[in-house]
């Protein structure tokens, strides 16, 4: 049923339909409303066979998920920013224990200065954790992503945590029509969780053992292999979802105008506006295409190599910085295309801490790249010239 709802409700509704056993979170803007909505559903008895816990911190919340998931439960949490990096120690641990925890990250900037607004810095901290990351463009995609996240994470070929990344405020607080899923659709798509190993007195097992150097490396290689397997599992499940729901969000990446000479690459809610910008620029005669990266981890290297092999110029819009280097998305992309592309890279870091990225601003950058007014390289865009002084 199509309804005008906020992004956080779209997520909460979808989580409910996935029937998690344990939901545990700690409030943090702009995630809070997701769990507030779930708390309301819990209070109204809409969540069956489910425990809803407000933890003492995100660290506690993630740890509770580890315990619950290890005991064989399907679990959910949502967080972002400081909360996510407070969880990070636990999430690295959960990935190593191969627990299929699902988290929605309402992407938000990191402190300092404190900012509640959107960028992708928090996700990047978790880049190397062994957690799958899917970036969504709008609230319908966020709504649809949750059941897929569970199915992928719980697939026995994968068994790794999954993080659905949706831009804080830009999506979470946007009020727009979303076709809300029916229970039957999700039930038919997502089977109950069948853990491969779990804590039970009927068949005792020890989880989270420590490994001597003689063993440790094998477990880490196994995680990498699981990530590699996840690529094909994800593609299969993305397709399956398109059939079941009638909404095809594409594979790991979505390519618009595959024959273009110039490609714009981005993730998250910015992609929508870039679609418009690219269409407008094409009307001006600029041969520009768009690549939306949906799956950020595992990084869809093969898809990107294929899509960008003939590109002449690649414009990357990063929403975070690896200080001392450049935007992480650009770093990843350059590494993926090494020896596969001779395109010039235009790596731009934009929209940090919720800095708005108006249409004309984005169009201007791409136009300048097309007209040769921009040199290849790395730059921040959309900030004011400044001088640092002492108060």
């Amino acid at each position, binding site marked *: 049923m199509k309804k005008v709802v906020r992004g956080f409700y779209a997520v909460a509704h979808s989580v409910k339909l996935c029937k998690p056993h*344990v939901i545990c979170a700690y409030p943090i803007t702009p995630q809070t409303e997701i769990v507030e909505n779930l708390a309301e559903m819990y209070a109204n008895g809409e969540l069956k066979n489910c425990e809803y816990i407000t933890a003492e*911190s995100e*660290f506690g919340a993630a740890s509770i998920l*580890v315990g619950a998931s290890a*005991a*064989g439960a399907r679990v959910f949490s949502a967080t972002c920013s400081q909360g996510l990096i407070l969880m990070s120690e636990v999430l690295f641990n959960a990935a190593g*224990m191969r627990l299929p925890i699902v988290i929605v990250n309402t992407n938000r900037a990191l402190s300092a200065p404190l900012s509640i607004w959107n960028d992708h810095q928090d996700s990047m901290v978790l880049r190397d954790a062994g957690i799958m990351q899917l970036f969504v463009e709008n609230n319908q995609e966020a709504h649809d992503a949750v059941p897929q996240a569970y199915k992928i994470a719980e697939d026995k070929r994968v068994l790794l945590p999954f993080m659905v990344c949706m831009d804080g405020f830009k999506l979470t607080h946007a009020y727009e029509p979303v076709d809300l899923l029916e229970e039957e659709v999700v039930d038919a798509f997502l089977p109950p969780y069948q853990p491969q190993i779990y804590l039970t007195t009927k068949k005792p097992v020890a*989880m989270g053992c420590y490994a001597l150097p003689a063993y440790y490396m094998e477990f880490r290689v196994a995680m990498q292999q699981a990530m590699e397997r996840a690529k094909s599992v994800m593609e299969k499940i993305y397709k399956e979802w398109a059939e079941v729901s009638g909404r095809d969000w594409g594979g790991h990446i979505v390519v618009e105008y595959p024959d273009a000479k110039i490609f714009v690459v981005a993730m998250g809610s910015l992609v929508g506006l870039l679609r418009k910008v690219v269409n407008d620029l094409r009307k001006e005669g600029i041969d520009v295409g768009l690549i939306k990266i949906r799956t950020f981890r595992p990084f869809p290297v093969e898809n990107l190599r294929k899509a960008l092999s003939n590109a002449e110029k690649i414009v990357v819009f990063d929403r975070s910085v690896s200080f001392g280097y450049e935007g992480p998305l650009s770093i990843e992309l350059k590494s993926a295309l090494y020896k596969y592309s001779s395109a010039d890279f235009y790596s731009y870091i934009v929209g940090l801490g919720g800095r708005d990225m108006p249409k004309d601003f984005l169009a201007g950058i791409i136009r300048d790249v097309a007209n040769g007014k921009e040199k290849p390289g790395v730059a921040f865009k959309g900030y004011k010239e400044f001088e640092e002084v002492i108060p």
Partner: protein
Amino acid sequence: MKFFGSGHGACPGCGLTIAVKNTLEALNGKCFVANPTGCLEIISSQYGRNAWGVPYIHSLFENVAAVAAGIDAALKAMGRRDEGKIVVFAGDGATADIGIGTLSGAMDRNHNIIYICLDNEAYQNTGHQQSGLTPPGEATTTTPVGKIFPGKIGKKKDMVAFALAHGCPYVATSSVAFPADIRRKVKKAASIEGFAYIQIHSSCVTGWGIDGNQSIEVARLAVETGLYPIVEYENGKLVSVRKIKDRKPVIEYLKVQRRFRHLLKHPKGKEIIERLQQIADENAKKYGLDG
């Protein structure tokens, strides 16, 4: 059927495994064990050498109470609570220092957990660094004895008061010197719905600087001097105390351990010994230990 296997890697005379084995036997193995990083984890859960005969999980150093809470929530949601109790075995550092946040959360939410703090009074796993439960005067690698300082200056955190302040329905202390007491208290804790906190004084042969065969004798001395009172609270009320006949002076306890022996000759040693004696006297008065 063993619930905890021989062949584990503990030092000869280790107090931890005495507490563990008696706890598991008291519960007849019907339990889930959560264990933070620490000595017990290292001696029992090496990959390929798991000593546990019951379901066991180790996650991190500072999150065991939350992990246990997660198991509790999962069992409740999935209708599996009859499988057994959830038991935490955590060291004093994991309990009173780094893990106190998640412990407070779990106590506050009153999860159905038996939380056992195996108190050997320092970070023994990593070579004897001071924790919040290290008593004053103890020489550790991070509170070493020097020309000025006679070991740890601060005090031992009162985790019993911490648990009581959280309204835990069952709070008790015990010692590896009294396995029957451990068993009784674990059984009692298991019969109570909600969070049970049991702090068990657990000898550490390497950290304390004693021989393996002194393990029990030294732990018993801690009780007999009044330094480690054995008490039991139900719903905030003191219900039992282990009485001491002819309470011994604390010096008897201190002089047999390397961690305290410097107090006998350090310029400030006398002062510390007096302070420790004062603590023992206050314990005796507070709980009525003498008798």
